[in-house]
Structures are given as structure tokens and as C-alpha cells.
């Protein structure tokens, strides 16, 4: 029989049996519910938002009045958003008020918005509102002075007020990239560990209930391992995408905070590295699972791997602060840390094309090598029952 059809059978079994298992369905539902709760709770609890605006200089009142009008047009009287407006002496005073969180945003001379940071949720909404009010005023004035249509379109498309944060000038895209870098890093870590754990327990399960001897009479160990990794990877990715889509949709509908438009290249990079990272860790988790005969021992067999992932994860936070540093560059080429580092560096635009390709090549090479090596450990481990084997013992005793 052809290798590909054996592999396909193993993958299909994994998809069918695991995909409709209560555990898989429950974990998908629970994850989704938890994420949705995390998104919805702040909105549900807070009700309406109150804003506090600081004004510096002249030409601000008109914009602020209109913004308040717009915000509360359709609101019931008792649900109106409350605005507190203060006049401040200088830009420095405004910055101080921002840092001490006395105000959410400051409007300077009717031409610039000053925010604390680019991702402060209520500040974002407020600045959008001010922008809208400012462009409405601009259009009114243009209409009054009979300006051309082209100007109107310009105004509608652009943002009439300048934007500055205490942290410097922030563009929407930068903001999105930071979100991706942080969020992606978290998700990568969670996904690699939790789906890796599925592979681990799946392999130990087959060994502990001894079905493996029947299987190995016709299936090669690497086919069994690869089939499991592919099957679980697909189910993991499906769950991952399902919860992510549910979260994004809820975010848009609930409007907890404005979603920046995510740069597609960053998303693609995240998915690519999810697959690479998952493959590397799952192969190793699978090999670890083959070393023990009882489910109780599975966790301890995988401890070294979990530690590596943990170290990679924490070191990536250092990379977030210094994406061009030596640590970042080294970790890019270390296969087991690359999945945590490369997407971050890519999102922060601090990795060159050459380095990127290099890291992918190293990762793929590692995966091929691991398939072979983990396959051997797996083959050596599967039919040795009893106490926990060492990696080296399994490698040496590989009989298949």
C-alpha cells in the first residue's frame, strides 16, 4: 500500500475520532465562551462611557460642542454620554493632565488631538469622535464658501486634526502591528503548548492502551507520528481560527474598542509560524509521549519541552522591547524559539527578508530532522513498556 494512503487513513481517523469527541467540542466551546466573555464583559459592565476633554488655545469649543451633539443625538436622556470639558493653560499642562489620567484627550488650537497612547481604548473612540466633528465643520464651511467636490472628498477621506500621543506620533498601522506582535505571541505560546499536549497525550494513550502494537504491524512509526501531528494540527488550527473569528466578529459588533485593520502580511506570517511552531513542538511532544507507558507520566516526560517553550516565550518579551538586538537575532535562528520571535520582529518591521527566509529554512530543516529523529525515538519507545525511558535509550533501542 502506498505511504500516502496510509498517512491519509491515520490523519482521517484522528480528524474523525478526535473532531467529534466530547473533549474537542467542549474545549472549543469553552475557549470561545471565555474569549467572548473577556470581550463583552467590559462593555456590559461599563454601560455608557464618560469622556473628559481638555482644551488648549482657541478654536476648540465649536468642535467639542458638535462632538457632544453627535455622540448624544440618538441616546435616551438617562443614557447620554457625560462630557467634562476643562480649559488648560498650555500644552505642557495638557500633557500633565493626560499622564495623570485627569483627561482622556486634549484638543489644541482646533487642529491637533493629544492622546496618552495609541491604544488607550476610550481615547481612541474620543479622538474618532473629535475627528468626525472637525470634518463635519470643515465640510459646512466649504459648502458655505462653495468649495469644490474634490475638497469635500479629501476631507471625508482624511483626518482633519493632527494626532499626537505622549509616546510620539502613532499611526493606525503601527498600532495594529503592536497588537499583532503582542497578541500573536500570546496565541502562539498557548497554541503550541495546548495542541502539543494533545499530541503528547494522544501518543501516550495509544501506547498505554497497547493499540500501538496492532498498528505497528502494518503502519510505520513515522507514519503514525506524522499522521497524528497533521490531524491534531488541522483540528487545532480549525479551533484556533474558529475562536479567532468569533472574537473578531464580537469585537466589531460590540465595539469594545476600535479594531485597526490588520496588515495581511503580519497575519500570514502568524499563521505560517503557527504551523511551523506547532509542527516542531508536536513532533517532539509526540516523541516524548512515546517514552512513557502511563498517562500519569506523560506530563513529566514533556517537562523539558514545556520549559523550552516557556523560556522562548519570556525571552520574546525582551525581543518586543528590542526587536533589533542581539538576542532577537540569535533567537531568530534557534528553531524552537523562532516561532515566538520571528512573527514579533516581522510585525515590528525589524527583520530583513533574508533573515526571514533564513529562519524559515532553518525551521523547515529542523522539522525534517525532527521527523526522522522523533520517529526513531517514537519507534524505540512504543514497544518498551514499563518505566519511563530516557530519550537516549529510546533512540538506541529503536527496533523499527
Amino acid at each position, binding site marked *: *500500500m502506498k505511504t500516502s494512503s496510509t498517512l491519509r487513513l491515520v490523519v482521517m481517523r484522528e480528524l474523525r*475520532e478526535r473532531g467529534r469527541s466530547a473533549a474537542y467540542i467542549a474545549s472549543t466551546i469553552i475557549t470561545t465562551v471565555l474569549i467572548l466573555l473577556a470581550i463583552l464583559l467590559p462593555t456590559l459592565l461599563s454601560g455608557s462611557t464618560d469622556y473628559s476633554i481638555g482644551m488648549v488655545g482657541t478654536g476648540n469649543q465649536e468642535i467639542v460642542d458638535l462632538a457632544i451633539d453627535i455622540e448624544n443625538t440618538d441616546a435616551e436622556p438617562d443614557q447620554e454620554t457625560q462630557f467634562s470639558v476643562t480649559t488648560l493653560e498650555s500644552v505642557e499642562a495638557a500633557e500633565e493632565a493626560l499622564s495623570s489620567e485627569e483627561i482622556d484627550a486634549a484638543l489644541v488650537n482646533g487642529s491637533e488631538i493629544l492622546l496618552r497612547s495609541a491604544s488607550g481604548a476610550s481615547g481612541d473612540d474620543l479622538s474618532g469622535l473629535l475627528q468626525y466633528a472637525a470634518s463635519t465643520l470643515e465640510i459646512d464651511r466649504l459648502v458655505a464658501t462653495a468649495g469644490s467636490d474634490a475638497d469635500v472628498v479629501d476631507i471625508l477621506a482624511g483626518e482633519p486634526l493632527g494626532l499626537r500621543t505622549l509616546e510620539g506620533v502613532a499611526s493606525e498601522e503601527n498600532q495594529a502591528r503592536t497588537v499583532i506582535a503582542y497578541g500573536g505571541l500570546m496565541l502562539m505560546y498557548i497554541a503550541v503548548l495546548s495542541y502539543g499536549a494533545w499530541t503528547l497525550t494522544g501518543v501516550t494513550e495509544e501506547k498505554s492502551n*497497547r493499540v500501538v502494537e*496492532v*498498528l*505497528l*504491524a502494518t503502519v510505520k512509526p513515522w507514519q503514525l507520528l506524522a499522521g497524528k501531528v497533521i490531524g491534531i494540527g488541522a483540528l487545532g488550527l480549525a479551533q484556533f481560527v474558529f475562536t479567532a473569528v468569533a472574537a473578531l466578529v464580537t469585537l466589531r459588533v460590540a465595539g469594545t474598542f476600535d479594531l485597526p485593520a490588520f496588515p495581511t502580511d503580519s497575519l500570514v506570517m502568524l499563521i505560517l509560524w503557527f504551523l511551523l511552531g506547532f509542527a516542531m513542538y508536536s513532533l517532539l511532544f509526540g516523541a516524548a509521549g512515546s517514552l512513557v507507558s502511563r498517562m500519569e507520566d506523560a506530563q513529566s516526560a514533556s517537562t523539558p519541552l514545556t520549559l523550552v517553550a516557556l523560556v522562548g516565550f519570556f525571552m520574546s518579551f525582551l525581543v518586543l522591547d528590542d526587536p533589533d538586538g542581539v538576542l532577537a537575532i540569535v533567537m531568530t535562528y534557534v528553531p524552537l524559539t523562532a516561532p515566538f520571535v520571528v512573527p514579533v520582529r516581522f510585525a515590528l518591521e525589524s527583520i530583513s527578508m533574508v533573515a526571514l527566509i533564513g529562519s524559515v529554512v532553518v525551521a523547515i530543516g529542523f522539522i525534517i530532522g525532527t521527523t526522522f529523529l522523533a520517529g526513531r525515538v517514537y519507534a524505540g519507545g512504543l514497544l518498551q513498556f514499563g518505566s519511563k525511558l530516557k530519550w537516549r535509550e529510546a533512540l538506541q533501542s529503536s527496533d523499527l
Partner: protein
Amino acid sequence: MLQMQDLTKSYGDVVALDGCTFAVGPGQMLGFLGPNGSGKTTTMRAVFGLIRLDRGAVTLNGNPISPNDRLAFGYMPEQRGLYPKMKAGDQLAYLGALHGMEQAEARRAGLQLLDELGLADRAEDPVEELSFGNQQRVQLAAALVHDPSVLVLDEPFNGLDPIGAETMANVLRQRAQNGATVIFSSHQLDMVEDLCEEVAVINAGRIVMEGNVRDLKAASPHRVIEFESSNGYAAVLDQLDGVITTSFDGHRHTVIVPAELDVRQVLNRADSDSGIQHISYSTPSLSQLFKEAVA
């Protein structure tokens, strides 16, 4: 012809197989016997390439066994194992497909086998919900679903009730009649004696006896005389010329004598007293041959 040729395998200092050599042909059913730890399971694993031999090889019709050949092999390992949460029918369909069958065909064959084994109504149940004996039957079905031409079963009668054992025996007999090569190991020698024409006995990794059961018995240098009597004759019988051993269980005497010994000599001596009944003179049982062989 499935040939084990000089199979040798050590685990560290433990010699599991030490030049084990024997053969089974199509249509034959061979009982593979041996004390605990003698190397039966290791031999069977070698047939499926599950261990790397230090020396020797298993061949099929003179050729090394390829993965393709093994698609037509069926295996029931000593340590039973199926996916506990998978339905019996799905399980058989999967294993059939792994042996190269079409999915639909594999499913049909699996259901038919479950039916033959009296489990038609359990096809949709997860295996873990079946009783131990019924799991055994599913395990047998798993070894048979692809209608193998070589069937290797490691202690298939373990844990079966007498009816289950008979079902198992019938299935194996029928497969052999249809031309399959069947090897199974067992410690139930009486059962093997009834079921098999051929046996191979392994001890400490070597074959110590092999051949047709009837021939082996006839070739034995010993005969067994048994009779019942209320009196103990052991002491008297022991004194007789040529008697090898005697035993008395309080009820029945068993006397082992050389094959050429004139049996009347023993009986005359015993006959001097009354109360002797149920005299039998026979070739040794398989279990006696076994004990001698592995002594």
C-alpha cells in the same frame, strides 16, 4: 511457507531467542508452546518486524518479508489493544483499510465478522463498553478483518469462557481449512492437543520439539498406563523392572513405562489384588511430552 530461520535476539544479558528455527505451511495450524519467558512473544513480534533481530530472519516462501506481504498478515498481540473510545465497527473498518482494503469493503467485512462472533448488535458501541471476553472477540475480528493468509495469535484463548474458546477454535480451524497459515501460542495444552496437528515447543529461545502431534506421541520412548484402585500400589510398582515413574493421586495411578515394555508385566503385578478398574494404556499426552521437552 512461513519460515523462522535461526532467530536470535538478546536484550542486554537476557537471551530472548537463541537460534529459533521452525516452519508453518499454508493450511496448517501450528500450536506454539513454551514456558513463560521462553521467547514466544518475541518470535511473533519478529514476524511483524516489530523487533530487530540480532541474527536470522523470518521468510515467506523463501523471501524476506516485505511491508506489502504484511498487509496480508493478521496479528493478535499478547497485550490486547484497541482504541477504547472508538466504535467496534469503525475500528474494524479502520484496521481493514490500513491493510489495504477499500473503506466500504472493510466495514462490510468487519460487520460480518462481528456477526459471526456473536457481536452483531455491538458494532456501534465503543469497545470500552464491552466485557473483557467480548473485547477479545473484537480483537480477533481485528486480526481477521482483511482475511489474512498468515494469522499469528499470541495466547488467543486467554480469558475466554468455554463457549468463547470454542468459537475461537472454530474460527481458526476454518481459516486453516481455507488455506491460511495459522500460528498461535497457548499454555492450555489439552486445548492445543485437540485443535492442532502441528506443534512447536520453544524453551529458552530454542525449539526443543517440533512436528505432527500424533507422530511426536508415537515416537515418544514412553507409554502411560493408568488405572484406578483404592489401594496404593506406588511402592510395589516402583520396584518393577523398567518402570520410569509412578504417581498416585489417592485414586488413580499413573505409571510411565518405556514403550517397549510388556504392559502385561505391570498389570499382572497389580492384578494380584482386586479392585482395579479403568485401565488404560496410551501414548503420552501433549502436556507430558511438553514437560519432558522443557525439563
